[in-house]
């Protein structure tokens, strides 16, 4: 086993720092990739971030990246950076299994990159491997199937969150510096929050989905997961932009996200909603004080903070469930009819519960979505951003079936993410503190449609003055003692 306490080259927490060091000649891409491989060698058997690793190919790509640096070539913003891809997104190296025995040939035929993966490679990113998910991005870990159980690197007795589980855990451990996740009801933001990293669900239609297995066609998003808001901005800059092959893709101008990271919040009005009314008894005892401290940090750095109430919270969450399950059932019904036992128990039962909703219910949910969208737009006449806890509780314990969010057909309890999938607004989750038992908690920062710039600005300003996003799980912490002190706030 690799000694993670030994100082090595290639130890960087953020894409931003690694990219700067690469350009300054302080580190090579090969060293970054070797470090990422060392982390995976040491802990992936325990954490379960990867379904497939491309070590040799990644090292070869890193050597090519270093040669390009040495030759003084013009390189992209992610040149030489080790990244990971959730395994419902196609890469040419290996099939996208969707962590399923179904192996739909549409996604499981290797040889082609999804549009987003092509964009990462064009920017110089190095794909380290395919990351774990829930089966077809829905359900819960299932030990009866031949796939890794994605554990939380902060506590191996807890789930990494889903469905972009491996993306969250791999970024948290440093097995990759950034990853692609997908979000239909919270699948970027939940694992990001549970694993103590930053994740962004862009505006619906901002990032093309071509080459990604669907869950809910009208709710699915692809977005970046990384240590910091600045890293997410770097990745989003590469990922965003219209693509005709995705019928949901919207031709909107893509601003310079990094230029928008001003480091302060002066002039912004931020509404907050604690959402205790939705979390009920599931709320962590530390949540209120952690969230209050985060609000105080935003205020200290120039924002005006006002209390708001998200309109139609329960209805938008209900609409997300009806739409997601109806659309998922439409895709999976033929396979559910003939290959029921090939699906994981959690996946098949959740998707099959789509039979409870009629065609009229589906249309009604899409009508409710319009009502909610208008009410949210009205709210944004008074505020620039809205912040809430991402979840009012930390990661789910494997031993606690009652807190299993994936099996709650009627609601999400302490998880506050689906609301924004229904409305389509861009949302960033940033680490904001720890639960009473020491697990990460996240704060959602939601903005107006296509205003990722302001969302990222707020996240970056918050992270300029706090260090929650730089904390690493105890499992891996010793690996970073040489270069990165871990702060407490």
């Amino acid at each position: 086993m690799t000694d993670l306490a030994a100082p090595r080259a290639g130890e960087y927490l953020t894409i931003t720092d690694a990219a700067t060091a690469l350009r300054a000649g302080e580190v090579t891409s090969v060293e970054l990739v070797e470090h990422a491989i060392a982390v995976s060698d040491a802990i992936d058997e325990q954490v379960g971030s990867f379904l497939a690793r491309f070590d040799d190919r990644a090292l070869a790509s890193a050597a090519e990246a270093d040669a390009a640096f040495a030759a003084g070539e013009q390189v992209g913003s992610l040149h030489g950076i080790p990244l990971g891809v959730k395994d419902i997104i196609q890469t040419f190296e290996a099939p996208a299994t969707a962590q399923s025995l179904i192996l739909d040939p549409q996604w499981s035929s290797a040889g082609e990159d999804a549009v987003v993966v092509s964009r990462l490679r064009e920017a110089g990113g190095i794909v380290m491997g395919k990351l774990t998910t829930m089966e077809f991005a829905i359900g819960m870990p299932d030990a009866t199937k031949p796939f890794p159980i994605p554990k939380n690197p902060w506590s191996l007795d807890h789930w990494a969150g889903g469905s972009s589980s491996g993306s969250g855990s791999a970024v948290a451990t440093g097995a990759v510096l950034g990853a692609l996740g997908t979000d239909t009801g919270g699948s970027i933001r939940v694992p990001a929050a549970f694993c103590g990293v930053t994740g962004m669900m862009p505006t619906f239609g901002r990032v093309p989905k071509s080459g990604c297995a669907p869950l809910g066609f009208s709710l699915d998003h692809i977005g970046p997961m990384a240590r910091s808001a600045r890293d997410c901005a770097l990745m989003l800059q590469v990922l965003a932009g219209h693509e005709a092959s995705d019928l949901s893709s919207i031709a909107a101008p893509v601003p310079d996200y990094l230029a928008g990271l001003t480091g302060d919040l002066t002039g912004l009005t931020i509404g907050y909603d604690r959402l205790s009314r939705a979390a009920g008894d599931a709320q962590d005892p530390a949540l209120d004080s952690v969230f209050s401290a985060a609000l105080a940090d935003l205020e200290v750095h120039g924002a005006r903070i006002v209390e708001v109430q998200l309109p139609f919270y329960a209805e938008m969450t209900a609409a997300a469930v009806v739409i997601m399950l109806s659309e998922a059932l439409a895709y999976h019904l033929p396979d559910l009819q003939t290959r029921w036992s090939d699906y994981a128990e959690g996946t098949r039962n959740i998707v099959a519960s789509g039979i409870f909703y009629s065609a009229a219910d589906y249309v009604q949910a899409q009508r409710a979505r319009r009502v909610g969208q208008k009410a949210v737009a009205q709210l944004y006449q008074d505020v620039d951003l809205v912040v809430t806890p991402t979840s009012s509780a930390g990661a789910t314990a494997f031993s606690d079936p009652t807190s299993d969010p994936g099996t709650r057909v009627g609601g999400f309890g302490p998880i506050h993410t689906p609301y924004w999938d229904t409305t389509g607004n861009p949302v960033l989750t940033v680490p904001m503190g720890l639960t009473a038992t020491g697990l990460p908690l996240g704060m959602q920062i939601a903005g107006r449609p296509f205003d990722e710039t302001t969302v990222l600005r707020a996240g970056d300003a918050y992270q300029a003055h706090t260090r929650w996003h730089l904390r690493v799980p105890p499992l891996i912490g010793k690996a970073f003692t040489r270069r990165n002190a871990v702060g407490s706030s």
Partner: protein
Amino acid sequence: MSDNLIDDRATTLALLQMNGLSPTEKEIDAMVAGYSAARAMVASLYSMPGIRYEEPAVTFDPRVIA
């Protein structure tokens, strides 16, 4: 077993049959238990203020895109 649960079971079994799905008995029990909550959740979408004349958030472009 209450009348409601009997109704929920009958409805769930009919929906499963209509959709050609064959879960285990244990899975059927779990689905029956979740049926009422699922329907109550949907009911809330029919009583939202302002929804009576709203259009659904689905669009269709008659041009074929390859």
